[in-house]
């Protein structure tokens, strides 16, 4: 435990709230969310559609403004106004992999440009030759052929496109990668390629990931720690196996029970748990963020915490 705490915290999200305006009304897509990510780990955020996963990741990337709270990268705040050099450093070392490989590549630019876009922005090469070499190296790293550089995105299959997107991030030699559902738009048979690639990079390049998905079976495979987010609030956070072994929050349980398994027999006997938020009685005492077991946090009130622990 103590040893763990010595790990370097790469990113810290403190009480993050992101509001959106809907007409004249405001609502919080992300509501007072806190977590941190250690260097070298894969931290996953799961939750149903619309729960605010993307919003968290975009707030980290500075695409959405945080209404409240702070985001610290290597101890420096990146949510407010950064200085020019801070921003440059941040943009270089933090990269994002996008969900939809169809939409996230500029259709009218060649792969060569797409991959080297960041290099251009930060002038990370001396001459055309060096740039070309970098592009080639990176393409190879993600398992693409170097001569793809002269082609347009639409000539590629979904998996190949996604790898182009990853190459675009990798070429910047980032330390931290935000991956917002990088596989959900892909075909089953291709997902594995990407997951393998991400794993390989983690090992070889010592990358840190914030991994977002709603597919828990994937998350389990890839992540060190998992946070479950529900309607803008994190309801449970634990080490990956711990969470699967001992889910506490009813929402987490519902989520786990709904995962379809590629096994006819277990599916036959499937027992679907449907989460009903009205079981909580938060009117008087609002829930708090408690550590139910070491490193296993859950959002609950005293009574619930007791009850869930007992089971």
């Amino acid at each position, binding site marked *: 435990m103590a040893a763990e705490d010595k790990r370097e915290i790469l990113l810290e999200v403190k009480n993050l709230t992101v509001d959106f305006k809907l007409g004249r009304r405001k609502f919080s897509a992300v509501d007072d969310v806190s977590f941190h990510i250690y260097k070298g780990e894969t931290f996953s955020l799961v939750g149903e559609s619309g729960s605010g996963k993307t919003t968290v990741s*975009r707030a980290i*990337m*500075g*695409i959405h403004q945080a209404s409240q709270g702070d985001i610290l990268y290597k101890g420096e705040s990146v949510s407010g106004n950064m200085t020019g050099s801070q*921003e*440059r450093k941040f*943009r*270089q070392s933090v*990269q*994002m992999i*996008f*969900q*939809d490989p169809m*939409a*996230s*590549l*500029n*259709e*009218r*630019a060649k792969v060569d*440009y797409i991959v080297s*876009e*960041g290099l*251009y*922005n*930060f002038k990370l090469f001396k001459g055309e030759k060096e740039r070309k070499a970098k592009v080639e190296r990176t393409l190879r790293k993600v*398992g*693409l*052929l170097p001569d*793809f550089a*002269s*082609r*347009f995105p*639409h*000539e*590629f*299959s979904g998996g*190949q496109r996604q790898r182009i*997107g990853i190459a*675009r991030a990798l070429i*910047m030699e980032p330390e931290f990668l935000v991956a917002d559902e990088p596989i959900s738009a892909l075909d089953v048979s291709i997902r594995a390629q990407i997951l393998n690639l991400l794993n390989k990079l983690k090992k070889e390049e010592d990358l840190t990931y914030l991994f977002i998905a709603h597919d828990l079976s994937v998350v389990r495979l890839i992540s060190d720690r998992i946070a479950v987010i529900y309607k803008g609030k994190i309801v449970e956070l634990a080490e990956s196996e711990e969470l699967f072994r001992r889910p506490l929050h009813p929402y987490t349980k519902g989520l786990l029970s709904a995962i379809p398994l590629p096994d006819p027999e277990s599916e036959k006997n499937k027992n679907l748990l449907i989460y009903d938020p009205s079981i909580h009685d938060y009117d008087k005492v609002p829930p708090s963020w408690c550590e139910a077991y070491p490193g296993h946090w859950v959002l609950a009130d005293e009574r619930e915490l007791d009850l869930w622990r007992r089971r």
Partner: protein
Amino acid sequence: MSDDAFTFAPWNPEAAEETGYSHYSYWRSTFRTFIKNRLSLTLLIIMGVLVLFSLLYPVLASVDPNKVALDSSLWNRRPDFAHIFGTDGLGRDIWARTWYGTRTSILLAFTIAFFDVGIGVVAGALWGYVRKSDQIMTEIYNVITNIPSTVYLILLSYIMKPGFWTIVIAMSSRGWITIARFIRNKVISLRESEYNVASRCLGTPLNRILGKNIIPFLVSIIIMQTALTIPYSIGAEVFLGFIGLGLPLDTVSLGNMVNQGRSNFMLYPFQLTWPTVILAVITVSFYIVGNKFADASDPKNHL
């Protein structure tokens, strides 16, 4: 079938990555798609020949389109060998005038289209991309589009001296905004698209985002708008001629010719017919060719 058939074949995962497509070039595909359509190709050729001829005619032929005949027997001559399209009420050669007029009208239309589209694209891209500009640009748009175009054209051509540049200024100072609006709508839909978000995450500066991520997607709109502006400008010149604010007399333009021909149409139909036919062929060709080219420039239609 040899037994060999049931042994493993050599396998190379890299080869499996190869995609089926050949090297692709946007413009080549656009052009190839375009020329597949026989109608538009024909019209393009016709248009090209007409435009080329009208540009070359003044060089090739020495007939002065403004040469007034003092001999009244040369006035209003029906088409014959000396004057292929006949002569007008002052003995000016309609054939020569038609080509000079075509040249003027085309130059005018191209100039207007150039400014309209040029300003419109830049303004529209900024309008769509820079959120802060939206309110003010929208108001400018509302204002400009709510001043009736006739008021505007007439006021300007009245305040300034009627002439080529007056028409250009009058048309372009107004025309750009509709194009800008089109562009803006498109840009807005592009602005939030994932690949732009990706670029922003990579810290790409605005000018390159516009140049690389936005403008290339507007090619078909740009072509379309250019194609629409050209016949529209030619028509506007005819209209201005009708209300007496067209190009000056010594400039031969299709607008002038149509208006002159019109007043004598019942008497000397040929004076209206030929300029009109040429004009119609040009405007219709531009319209169709432009549309088809815009279609062709949409990569969805490439194969």
